């Protein structure tokens, strides 16, 4: 099988020497032998020398007037303007280089080629697309890019620097209690370094500042302290400080993180992190001028497609939808390629949906033999056209019927969905052919109403031909004014008005029941009585309980124009909701474009960059639920990404990682294009990362082929490959995709290795090129994995990070270790290696005296004791106990399976943490494999031994009792945020992770979080689970326990 993206077709890596067919502009073909890593300019020189020996040389002009062009893997032509690129890096399909005279705008072509490289989609292919929605989006979105470039330029270099080095701060100013108590009279000790003479001369001093001091105060303090040795007068000193304060900025030692913004020093994450761990923050004075000098240009190139004439929507007589008086119907014509055998009949099923909710009963066509899929039948729905809501979609499927014994078995063969209104508000009319999608594995439903809209780009799939009534050339959904007007009209004629928030006596009890409904988790179902009440109380909701909006929207009858218009009136005056509520409104349940728009606006106002970073993974996924390419969520994410490089970094990678998915590659591709057009000179840095990952992917592709060779041979291959100039170039001095603040210097090739696990990941080590890197973190170790889906790991770690911040806000510091993990493409990604950590298995084996099966449970304790001699011991045990509690609760709630001493690690300061999250939500082997694992929970003898500091009978110790209490508190703290946790998982549904396919999978969280129980009952449930897992070790005496927890 030919590899897809090797350096040449049929080769993962180009042979060291290749014969290149060079096609000259004088018609001559020259077969030129080239070495693999030869740059194009050298090839050109050789070619011209060679061409002299061939006829028609006189017809060739100067080499510099020509460029090379060739065909890439994806069958695209590319012109190579940058002639320093190496032959092996061009992604050639065949070793063919054509020489041409360049035409057109060189600048734009270079930029397009760079963007194409970064995004992984050919820009000219986008240019050639006929779809007006694509072209309108590309045109309109440039406005966002332009605005952002201008905003970044507002204060010149100063604001540009803020984009490149945004402040990484916590959303809240106040310190959590657990950290506050570690401070001495609210003061922080900082270590400030200063470099002179290119880093050869390092000096450091310590300063003591208030926790609320601004970075500039710290700079002044440091300069003041330094000047003390100069014996200056107070005045001179003040003057010195004045002069130098502006010259310097604070930088975190060893990384590319700067403290540029006026935030209290303790609000900076780095500082807070150090304080929590009891370490002294290491900062350095860095010249502001140098920061500014490092910034690439902040320009925007307006692409030529902006100058093309705008395609006007077809004109002609148009009607408002509400002027019609017909039932909605669809004409099912015929299908192609229906691929079945052994079935009795096939038919078409059609349903109208608004989010998850059917608007009316589904309809079926008549059944026909599978070999003649023709129907020519109108299906008429019980829904008047005027009642069709703006977010309606028609879901279609071809189903088979098999008659067995007395039962009929129905199966969906293929499905497809269409938006009833296009992005310009006009109703679908006339004939539509929809190429259908294959049924996801394990799906039993007969319609896939949550699936994507639009045709499958794979034209081999079955195609269904349908037709809609053409009642007028254009039918529009009424505009906002018309809807409002109608809403007021309906309100004025209704006999029983809604309850208004004026009757105060009745109010209190009503508000209470509304609050009760609001508190229900996002997956709980509302009864009809609750829906009726919500609808009656909608004005009360708006005034008093705005966060019940998601529930109220569930109560709206979307198949009634009257309801919809009245809700629209109310939405216009709805006060902003909390960010968690707004996130919930982005779920697919909320199909109305106006609701989604509002939700995004509220998010834009209320989400700090820190919080946005936390939820970015989910927000990118919910883009898939947006019915149209141009939507408020895309604009919001793009804008925030173009104003904060940290956000942008992950925005880019989260989109890029899914470019292989055909159903969204266009949507994500054009958004990535816009991002690349908007970041100006920073595009270069992004390209370096893409290229480095590309190199590693190809290398591991070869290693996969060689996977059964002896390790020695594979290692030899790895070392040799990585010492080739093209690898050395590509794999050094680029920003780490895992962390935008880390620059990966040169690769320490001799310490890199191929790991043993199934997919043969690479363990890679880079030097930290920062002058102070040596003192802080001299090396970066990263695992590169090719062959495993890392999205689940990434999600799990992100949720653990969110849990950690929930706990911190509730005053619990559980020392979690959500190490970095990033999926960068299909089954490709990187994982951060935590320093100074070992697997529990590794530690157990260290004892050595016992056979593998008889593990000595005192080893772990011994190891920690050894690494933490003297006063550090107590701290280490505390760290262990806290982190162990945190991971116990986190793994329990998330149902993380397959736990063994090989995927639990401990680092030298005592933090325990889990790695490899291949199974979660209680999946062990799903569905076709039968079982769900028991509640996973790992607390083994060795852990108990550490927690109790090595006493006999650890389960009877006071320390263990405290540990249990800690677990209970951590559990209850998360329960209070159950709705957020559930929402985050709902938002991840469109990712298509095999273990997170449907709402049923999230049911696991509702269960472990015991959402329907009272707090007391929930804790009892939690304790019982642990009791069961530990068969008696866990105490079930709740009374004392609950009381000690409840009133914290």
């Amino acid at each position, binding site marked *: 099988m030919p590899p897809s993206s090797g350096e040449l077709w049929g080769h993962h890596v180009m042979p060291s020497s290749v014969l290149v067919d060079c096609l000259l502009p004088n018609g001559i073909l020259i077969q030129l032998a080239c070495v693999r890593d030869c740059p194009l300019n050298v090839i050109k020189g050789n070619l011209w020398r060679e061409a002299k020996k061939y*006829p028609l040389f006189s*017809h060739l002009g100067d080499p510099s007037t020509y460029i090379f062009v060739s065909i890439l893997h*994806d*069958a695209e032509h590319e012109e190579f303007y940058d002639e320093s690129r190496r032959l092996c890096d061009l992604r050639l399909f065949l070793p063919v280089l054509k020489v041409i005279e360049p035409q057109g705008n060189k600048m734009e072509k270079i930029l397009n080629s760079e963007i194409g490289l970064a995004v992984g989609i050919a820009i000219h292919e986008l240019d050639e697309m006929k779809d007006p929605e694509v072209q309108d989006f590309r045109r309109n979105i440039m406005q966002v890019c332009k605005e952002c470039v201008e905003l970044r330029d507002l204060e010149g270099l100063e604001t540009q620097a803020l984009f490149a080095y945004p402040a990484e701060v916590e959303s809240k100013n106040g310190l959590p209690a657990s950290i506050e108590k570690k401070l001495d009279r609210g003061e922080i000790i900082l270590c400030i370094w200063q470099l002179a003479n290119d880093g050869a001369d390092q000096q450091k001093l310590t300063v003591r500042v208030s926790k609320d001091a601004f970075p500039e105060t710290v700079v002044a303090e440091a300069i003041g302290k330094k000047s003390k040795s100069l014996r200056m007068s107070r005045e001179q000193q003040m003057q010195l400080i004045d002069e130098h304060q502006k010259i310097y900025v604070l930088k975190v030692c060893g990384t590319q993180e700067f403290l540029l913004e006026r935030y209290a020093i303790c609000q900076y994450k780095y500082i807070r992190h150090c304080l929590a761990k009891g370490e002294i923050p290491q900062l350095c004075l860095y010249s502001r001028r140098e920061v500014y000098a490092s910034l690439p240009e902040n320009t925007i190139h307006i692409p030529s497609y902006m100058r093309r004439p705008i395609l006007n929507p077809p004109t002609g007589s148009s009607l408002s939808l509400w002027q019609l008086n017909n039932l909605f119907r669809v004409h099912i014509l015929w299908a192609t390629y229906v691929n*079945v055998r052994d079935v009795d009949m096939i038919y078409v099923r059609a349903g109208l949906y608004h989010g998850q909710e*059917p608007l009316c009963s589904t309809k079926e066509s008549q059944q026909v033999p599978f070999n003649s899929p023709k129907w020519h039948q109108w299906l008429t729905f019980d829904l008047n056209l005027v009642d069709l809501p703006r977010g309606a979609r028609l879901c279609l499927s071809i189903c088979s019927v098999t008659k067995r014994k007395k039962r009929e*078995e129905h199966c969906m063969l293929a499905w497809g969905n269409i938006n009833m209104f296009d992005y310009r508000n006009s109703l679908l009319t006339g004939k539509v052919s929809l190429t259908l999608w294959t049924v996801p594995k394990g799906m039993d439903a007969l319609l896939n109403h949550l699936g994507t809209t639009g045709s499958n780009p794979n034209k081999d799939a079955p195609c269904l031909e349908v037709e809609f009534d053409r009642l007028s050339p254009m039918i529009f959904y009424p505009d906002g004014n018309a809807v409002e007007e109608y809403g007021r009209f309906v309100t004025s004629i209704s006999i029983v008005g809604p309850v208004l928030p004026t009757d105060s006596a009745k109010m209190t009890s009503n508000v209470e029941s509304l609050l009760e409904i609001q508190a229900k988790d996002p997956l709980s179902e509302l009864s009809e009585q609750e829906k009726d009440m919500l609808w009656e109380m909608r004005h009360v909701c708006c005034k008093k309980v705005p966060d019940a909006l998601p529930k109220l929207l569930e109560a709206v009858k979307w198949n009634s124009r009257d309801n919809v218009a009245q809700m629209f009136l109310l939405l216009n005056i709805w006060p902003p909701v909390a960010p968690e509520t707004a996130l919930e409104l982005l779920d697919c349940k909320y199909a109305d474009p106006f609701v989604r728009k509002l939700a995004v606006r509220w998010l834009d106002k209320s989400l700090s960059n820190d919080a946005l970073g936390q939820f970015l993974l989910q927000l990118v996924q919910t883009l898939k639920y947006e019915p149209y390419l141009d939507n408020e969520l895309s604009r919001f994410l793009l804008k925030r990404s173009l104003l904060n490089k940290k956000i942008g970094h992950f925005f880019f990678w989260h989109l890029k990682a899914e470019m292989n998915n055909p159903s969204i590659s266009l949507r994500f591709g054009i958004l990535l294009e816009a991002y690349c057009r908007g970041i100006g000179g920073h595009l270069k840095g992004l390209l370096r990362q893409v290229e480095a990952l590309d190199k590693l992917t190809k290398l591991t592709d070869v290693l996969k082929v060689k996977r059964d060779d002896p390790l020695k041979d594979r290692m030899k291959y790895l070392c040799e490959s990585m010492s080739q100039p093209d690898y050395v170039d590509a794999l050094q001095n680029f920003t780490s995709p895992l962390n935008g603040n880390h620059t990966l210097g040169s690769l320490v090739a001799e310490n890199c290795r191929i790991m043993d696990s199934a997919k043969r990941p690479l363990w890679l080590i880079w030097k930290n090129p920062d002058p102070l890197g040596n003192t802080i973190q001299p090396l970066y170790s990263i695992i590169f994995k090719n062959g495993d889906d890392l999205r689940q790991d990434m999600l799990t770690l992100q949720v653990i990070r969110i849990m950690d911040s929930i706990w911190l806000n509730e005053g619990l510091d559980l020392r979690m270790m959500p190490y970095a993990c990033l999926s960068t493409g299909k089954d490709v990604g990187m994982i951060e290696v935590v320093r100074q950590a070992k697997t529990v298995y590794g530690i157990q084996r260290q004892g050595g005296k016992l056979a593998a099966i008889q593990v000595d449970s005192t080893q772990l304790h011994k190891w920690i004791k050894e690494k933490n001699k003297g006063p550090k011991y107590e701290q280490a045990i505390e760290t262990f106990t806290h982190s162990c509690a945190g991971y116990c609760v986190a793994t329990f709630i998330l149902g993380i399976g397959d736990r063994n001493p090989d995927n639990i690690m401990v680092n030298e300061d005592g933090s325990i943490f889990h790695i490899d999250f291949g199974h979660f939500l209680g999946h062990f082997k799903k569905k076709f494999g039968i079982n769900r694992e*028991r509640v996973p929970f790992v607390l083994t003898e060795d852990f108990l031994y550490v927690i109790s500091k090595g006493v006999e009978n650890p389960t009877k110790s006071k320390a263990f009792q405290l540990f249990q209490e800690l677990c209970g508190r951590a559990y209850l703290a998360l329960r209070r945020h159950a709705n957020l946790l559930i929402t985050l998982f709902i938002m991840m549904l469109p990712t298509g992770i095999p273990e997170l396919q449907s709402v049923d999978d999230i049911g696991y969280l509702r269960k472990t979080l015991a959402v*329907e129980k009272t707090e007391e009952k929930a804790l009892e449930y939690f304790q019982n689970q642990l009791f069961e897992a530990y*068969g008696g070790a866990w105490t079930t005496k709740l009374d004392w326990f609950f009381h000690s927890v409840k009133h914290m």
Partner: protein
Amino acid sequence: MTELRPSAAPSLPPRINRRLSQTDTCPISPTSETCIRTISDAEWYWKNITREEIDDLMKDTPDGTFLVRDSASKAGEYTLTLRKGGCNKLVKICCHQGRYGFSEPCIFNSVPELIHFYRSASLAQYNPTLNVKLLYPVSRFQNMEDAESGNDVDKMRKRLEDAHHEYLKRSRQYDQYHHDYSECLEDMQLKKQTSDAFNEAVIMFEEQLRLHEKFEREAHRHEIHSLKENYQLLKFQMSNLKQTRQELQNHLRVQTVLSRNLDREMNALKPELHQLCKTRDLLQMKFLSTIEVYVQQNPSVVHADSQYWLLPDCTRPDAERLLTGKADGTFLIRRSAGAPFALSIACRKVDKRVGHILIHRSERGFGFTEPYLLFPTLNDLVVYYAGHSLEELNPLMTTTLAHPIRGSQPLDGNNSNSIPTSPPVVATTVEGYMTC
């Protein structure tokens, strides 16, 4: 210590009514509702069934299909789930001063009475959008009758095992098809792209040939010969390209046929899988009901109380020490690594005279092997196997769970070891990592 319940697992479909074990009452016909006094006799009452299960039961049913379950939030109240307009509507059944209704005032004396009323009256009088009657109850008896297999337990077990193994076999086959199919599609995608790239390359060479022809006229005479050679080379390269393209396209055609075949096989297998899954589930439910009947008919104080046989922290060697020399059938249950628990039992026919069997757990319950991971509690399992031999699991274990280790012991030879009455000292081995 009381019952150990797998409370993390979603609850089972409601168990067969206890009434089945009583011989003096005749089964009530599912349709004759008028005579039903209590809700627990009603065919449409599904106790604490989960939402997922309801969705499954009511999928693609006609409007008017309904069932009643316990309210999740309020004990003593119920929820009616009703199919309308292609989705499930939840209607709370409120209880006020012993009377039931959808809203105040509650006028029905019982839930069956309320349901009976709305079987012939539309709910529209309560809520205008619910203009449908309660037409089709989802019956929990219906399923039972479908899986008829008489009362011959052995026959039923045989059927259950067959269905289970057939299901596993088929689903593995399906998985294989699915895997092959995805791979095939991916490969075809690549080949298509490659074929496109070849087309582009051919065009590029065609252009070059035309260019060559154009320049031929401008060549000097001495150049003509080498020019011709170069032309031949171009043509040669071009024909190579075309040939490779042809081969690729042939492959692609073969694969297209293959992928269609696989897709067809999957589509054919799916209905069969559904059927098998349903059959197995039904038989499991049926078997579960026989377990329940058995447990109810054989009350055993000692077996039903875990304190007589559950020694969680006991290790495998500990168990062997405790059980050696005991009468056959003396047993204990301990925690284990490969599964939540393991049974250790004295039996003279097996090696070391002590046998160990893992106790697994599925979302349905505990058990020794699939498809019998059905026992709601460990206690049920113990009671059941006190009356059923372990032979079917291991032919050498010709014993039942006769004597709990902390129960009264039959005198057997030199039995003088005292039985610990408190949990044994926790050994230093890490059970979590030991195999049973």
